[in-house]
């Protein structure tokens, strides 16, 4: 009986969300005088139209999945880790360090060092947020936002200052890394297979930790009711710190991917909004690790599909943002409606 109830609710949720999203996006497109069908065709299928598009899709999905997996940890502990953008940025900055300090080391060793450094940078940044939350009672949302600004400031300072190209001060970014330091890609594609592999392993680890360990149970207890959990002997502050720290590690690795596999150098906007997009995704799936992968792929495919919009249809790529955003809004609304109904019953 309970199984059936859950199922019908899920279908309702799904249908309501999809219908609401499509209705809203279509309305906006119609008002702008754009053919919705043509836009949807590109948004839904554009990312799969050629091998190079699929490669771009995976290279976007990899850091996105890393961030989303990290955020699943923090959401499980009841934290809204808005500082993820800064954690990714710091990861990217730290990943640059070994590449700049010891460029003559063998590339595989440098990659390992860069990933480790990235993880360190991201986790240090997350640890600062955690410390502010635990010891100074600063809400993690505000602490994270502050740390984001700081991270952006550091990136800008480095790009315009000590790491600028010789004789140049431009936000174009640092001199590109020598080709041999780029993560190896499949021939003729911009796909570095290591990136999605890392992301998938991260997802696997997060899923295992949350679903199959005592630690995961205590994290979720912290998220559901910290006072009760504390009373039951869960070290809730430690759990908050650990999940933020873990999220920082994953975001930092995502930052290292942006450096080694995507931009091949530091640019001020190295995060490109990936952390915020991951937040949307985790909101949408309510931090269930099992749903992360499909939704990450879906959102990444919207983003890659939308690249063609201006050229093909004279439509701004931002329409993919409208679609992603309204998807989350309607999902939250559908849930809200159901909760109200359940309370009434």
């Amino acid at each position, binding site marked *: 009986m*309970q*199984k*059936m109830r*859950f*199922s*019908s609710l*899920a*279908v*309702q949720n*799904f*249908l*309501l969300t999809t219908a609401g999203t499509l209705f*809203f996006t279509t*309305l906006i497109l119609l*008002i702008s005088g754009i053919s919705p069908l043509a836009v949807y065709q590109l948004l839904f299928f554009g990312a799969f139209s*050629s091998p*190079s*598009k699929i490669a*771009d899709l995976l290279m*976007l999905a990899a850091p996105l999945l890393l961030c989303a997996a990290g955020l699943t940890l923090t959401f499980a502990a009841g934290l809204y880790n808005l500082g993820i953008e800064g954690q990714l940025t710091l990861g990217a900055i730290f990943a640059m360090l070994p590449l700049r300090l010891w460029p003559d080391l063998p590339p595989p060793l440098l990659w390992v060092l860069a990933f480790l450094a990235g993880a360190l940078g991201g986790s240090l940044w997350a640890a600062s947020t955690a410390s502010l939350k635990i010891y100074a009672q600063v809400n993690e949302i505000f602490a994270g936002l502050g740390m984001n600004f700081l991270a952006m400031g550091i990136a*800008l300072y480095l790009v315009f200052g000590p790491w600028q190209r010789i*004789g*140049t*001060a*431009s*936000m*174009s970014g640092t001199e*590109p890394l020598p080709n041999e330091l780029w993560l190896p890609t499949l021939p*003729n594609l911009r796909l570095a297979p290591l990136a999605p592999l890392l992301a998938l392993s991260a997802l696997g680890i997060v*899923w295992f930790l949350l679903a199959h360990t005592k630690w995961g*149970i205590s994290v*979720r*207890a912290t998220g*559901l*009711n910290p006072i009760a*959990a504390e009373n*039951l002997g869960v070290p809730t502050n430690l759990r908050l710190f650990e999940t933020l720290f873990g999220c920082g590690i994953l975001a930092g690795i995502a930052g290292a991917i942006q450096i080694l596999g*995507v*931009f*091949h150098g530091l*640019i*001020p*906007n190295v995060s*490109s*909004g*990936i952390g915020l997009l991951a937040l949307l995704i985790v909101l949408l799936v309510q931090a*269930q690790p*099992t749903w992360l992968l499909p939704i990450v792929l879906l959102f990444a495919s919207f*983003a890659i599909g939308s*690249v*063609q919009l*201006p*050229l*093909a249809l*004279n*439509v*701004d790529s931002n329409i993919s943002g409208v679609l992603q955003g309204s998807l989350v809004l309607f999902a939250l*609304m559908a849930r809200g*409606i159901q909760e109200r*109904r359940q309370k009434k019953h």
Partner: protein
Amino acid sequence: MHLAHHVLPTQPLSARMTNALALVALADSVKPFLKLESCVKRMFRSFLPKFGLVWLSTILLLAACSSSQSPTSNLPTVSSTTASSPNPDSAYTFGMLLVGPNNDFGWSQAHYEGAKYAEAKVPGTKFIFVDKVNPADRPGIKVEQIVDDLVNKGAKFIISNSDDFKDGTREAAKAHPDVLFLHVSGDDQLTAKAPKNLGNVMGKMEYGKMIAGCAAALQTKTGKVAYLGPLINDETRRLVNAAFLGANYCWQNLRADKPSEKLDFSVTWIGFWFNIPGTTLDPTVVANEFINAGHDVIISGVDTTEALVEANKATKAGKEIFAIPYDFKDACKQAPAVCLGVPYFNWGPYYVKTLTALKAGSWKPSWEWLAPDWKNLNDLDTTAVGFLPGPALAAENKAKLDEFIAKLAGKDFDLFVGPLNFQDGTVYLKAGEKADEKKIWYMSQLLEGIKGKSK
């Protein structure tokens, strides 16, 4: 174990997922639909009255914005118009990446209009483009990705218009060896980094900037000229130095009042070709700082027209401030009352020449630096660089400016002649030494006498 009982969902996560999937597979499809119906009803009854209004007003607002904005809309107006070719499929397609919007009254619009001009002049060509290719408008999207799309649309020749695209264009050219590339303002040909299918071009804007500097020095009353700089590199230092040389020459030799004090020439760099909030300095703010510090002429080096707009505002508020925009021939139109003139790029004739050569199969990638047509600086069918005097330039100053332009057009006159020192006191050109092209192209510092950062 008590704990686990309370907090764990009744089913493991994987089972829940299977459930959800099974549902989608229409296991019990009727019931949910019935429930959905009641749910939608409920939505109309309870939910829509409350939130519907908010949504509706948002949508109406958006609609109002998009319709009222349409002439200068921020949406990229991307077209793929066919030229007079009867069969568009056989047309020679060329693509362009623009760093800013194609209606920026500056750098990007100059390229856009040059390409439209060429498309109209060379039969059987088709122009496609993507504008606003920059990390603020299209975060995370790389030059290579956009080039892929242009090539997919049939482009056989691709022009990338920003120094910001240098690395991306090189990578794209390597990835598409069958497509020809032209990187504007780049130097991959000079540094031997260019693959075989990549050429560079630039206009000799230093002359336009000398004329701009001269106009500024002739018109200033406070003796303080400001330069609103974009980012710092060889190109922008070259242009600031050229403006300074022009200004200094006219200040010392062409002013009727023969000023004894030195001309104050200051530059502030914003960090990119246009404003990116939170990343660059805001050119509007910088322009006002100039005005408050007593500069009464602002020469713009950025792609957009903030200097002109702010000069106009200050003038309306009772001050007398002038500006010299940059890049695009019609830039003065935004505020003619304070515009002393505009040095501009005119890419049309060069694109016509290039497309004709491409169609004939005779185009060879190289490094080209296009001189103005000195016979008539403003002949739009021939010149690569021009200067259109603006309505605000006083008549007697206009006459002197023409005198200066005539001197520049002459064979024996040059301003990049020693003795000239760099800001740090090192020698740029010894007495009597004339700078060759490379010494002008690769400008490692600002010149002595300019206030502002060299790097």
